[in-house]
């Protein structure tokens, strides 16, 4: 179950809206954030801990550029819909998988495979392909037009939904 927008007060929302990027790199970053938001360092840390324990934040930290932080690619497989969960579990068990979604298409499982370098990436894909017994569609990024993952949260829409 997703969280409800009403679970997040103004301070939570300001933290999320203001700091998906630009966390200061200084000795006490949460102190600086607290000063800007007019609260205390302890309060900021407590809020972040709560958001993390609710699963709203996967982490507070850097997002690395995939194309420079090692090798990665988007991959897809077409599997019988009735066995989708079992195939998804095999994919999740493979090293380097960091996203894995079911989508509405014949290619119904989509995942991102990562590795320290290109040969290791291909080795991981080949191992997984054998385990799955179906061909893996390999779709590396050729050109990125927009690689910023931060996204304005539509709080008002969430309250209406």
């Amino acid at each position, binding site marked *: 179950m997703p969280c409800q927008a009403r679970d997040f007060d103004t301070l939570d929302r300001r933290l999320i809206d203001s700091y998906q990027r630009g966390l200061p790199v200084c000795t006490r970053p949460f102190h600086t954030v607290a000063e800007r938001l007019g609260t205390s360092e302890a309060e900021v840390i407590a809020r972040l*801990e709560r958001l993390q324990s609710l699963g709203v934040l996967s982490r507070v930290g850097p997002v690395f550029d995939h194309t420079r*932080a090692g090798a990665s690619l988007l991959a897809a497989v077409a599997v019988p819909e009735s066995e989708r969960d079992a195939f998804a579990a095999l994919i999740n068990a493979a090293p380097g998988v960091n996203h894995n979604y079911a989508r509405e298409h014949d290619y119904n499982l989509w995942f991102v495979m990562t590795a320290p370098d290109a040969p290791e990436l291909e080795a991981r894909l080949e191992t997984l392909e054998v385990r799955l017994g179906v061909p893996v569609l390999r779709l*590396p990024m050729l050109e990125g037009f927009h690689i910023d993952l931060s996204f304005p949260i539509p709080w008002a829409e969430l309250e209406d939904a």
Partner: protein
Amino acid sequence: MTVAIPIVVEPDRQLGEPAAQHRLRVLLEQGLPLSPRPWQILAEQSGLTEDEVMTCVRRWQAEGLIKRLGLVVRHRRLGIQANAMVVWDVPDTRVAEVGRRLARETAVTLCYRRPRRLPDWPYNLFCMLHGTRREWVLAELATIVERHGLGDIECRVLFSQHAYRQCGGRYAREGDA
């Protein structure tokens, strides 16, 4: 044609031993400790000083290895559950222009060119659209198609049905850290 080739970022010998920088990279993938002095904790764990850690992070930001630093939100947990991957079969001569146009749309959170895999997969441009409701995402897509005159380009919308995993990259080799 621009092909993304992984760039090996050379460790800076002024900033501690290269192995320590690598340990820092691996630790950073797990996120910062939520503590008043997070860089100090990472420094102790990686074998660098706090100053060296902050200098490394600033350098990686300047080099573009770190795209952003902050709260990494799981949108689905917030109820932003309509996550659509829209794929387009754009003539090669137009793909860069269409990609740049889509990327400027605020509703578009990612936009990449990828190879076609014929005959199974004819689509060469991918973008992500997020929203609270499926019909709103489709309405947004219709607006975008209209605004940029993309009606003649074949596209498919692949909504997500289930997230089996959604987490940050793990680039470290097994046994690292």
